[in-house]
């Protein structure tokens, strides 16, 4: 289905309002975080994600981190909180593609030891090569 302009616009407004965008398949609910994750933004994002979890009851929750360009320890709280939530619900929880800066702080707290972190470095590399070829 091709989306009309108005629909696209409302989706973008929605993203700004909530603090993230999201995709949902049968198996997983993917929360795509971007920009700067600090105490100010984490507050709002947390409330919205929790509503999402309560409504959709996902089997697997993915937090996609590749578009984040800053994160402090408030982001750790946000991640840990959603992880515990999914533990209680008996669902899976995954962090996807954190950049090096975000990964550093995740490691510092030892979260990578308890939470699954998916990285696709090879994929990125091959995408880059692909882009170069197409130039």
């Amino acid at each position, binding site marked *: 289905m091709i989306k009309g302009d108005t629909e696209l616009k409302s989706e973008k407004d929605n993203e700004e309002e909530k603090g993230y965008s999201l995709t949902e398949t049968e198996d997983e609910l993917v929360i795509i975080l971007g920009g700067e994750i*600090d*105490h100010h933004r984490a507050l709002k994002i947390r409330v919205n994600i929790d509503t999402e979890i309560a409504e959709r009851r996902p089997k697997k929750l993915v937090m996609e981190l590749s578009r984040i360009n800053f*994160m402090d*320890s408030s982001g*750790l709280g946000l991640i840990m909180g959603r992880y515990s939530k999914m533990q209680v619900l008996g669902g899976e929880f995954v962090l996807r593609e954190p950049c090096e800066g975000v990964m550093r*702080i995740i490691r*510092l707290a030892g979260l990578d030891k308890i939470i699954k972190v998916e990285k696709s470095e090879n994929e990125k590399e091959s995408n880059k090569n692909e882009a170069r070829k197409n130039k």
Partner: protein
Amino acid sequence: MRQEKINEMSMKLPSRSVNEGMARAAVAAFCSQLDPDASEVADIKCAVSEAVTNCIVHGYKNEIGIIYITVSLYADRTIKIEIRDRGRGIEDVKKAREPLYTTDAENERSGMGFTVMESFCDKVRVVSQCGKGTKVVLCKRLRKR
């Protein structure tokens, strides 16, 4: 011998969470005179964000107060950042600095604030007095370029 101070900047801002981003961006912009690399800028921003968030969440819990920030740049490429509030103060500084220790778990504070500051800076000094406020001094020496 104390290194020569080459520049200094001060700012004060109310403890509203919307100012967190501005505080770390302003400090990073001032430090850019010393030409830090990208990872050093990221370290500074993160450490400042932690200290400022502490002022907002703990120092001025349930009230709006003023946060004072002073940044000094030294000739040996050391950056000294002082972040001060006149809030409630910390009862047990040693305990507060322990990793994962938090007094605000219900708001999902991770208890990693001081640990982040310590690992992203070379030296972190905390002076606090109950009822008077808290001062955090972050020192970071940039690599030679």
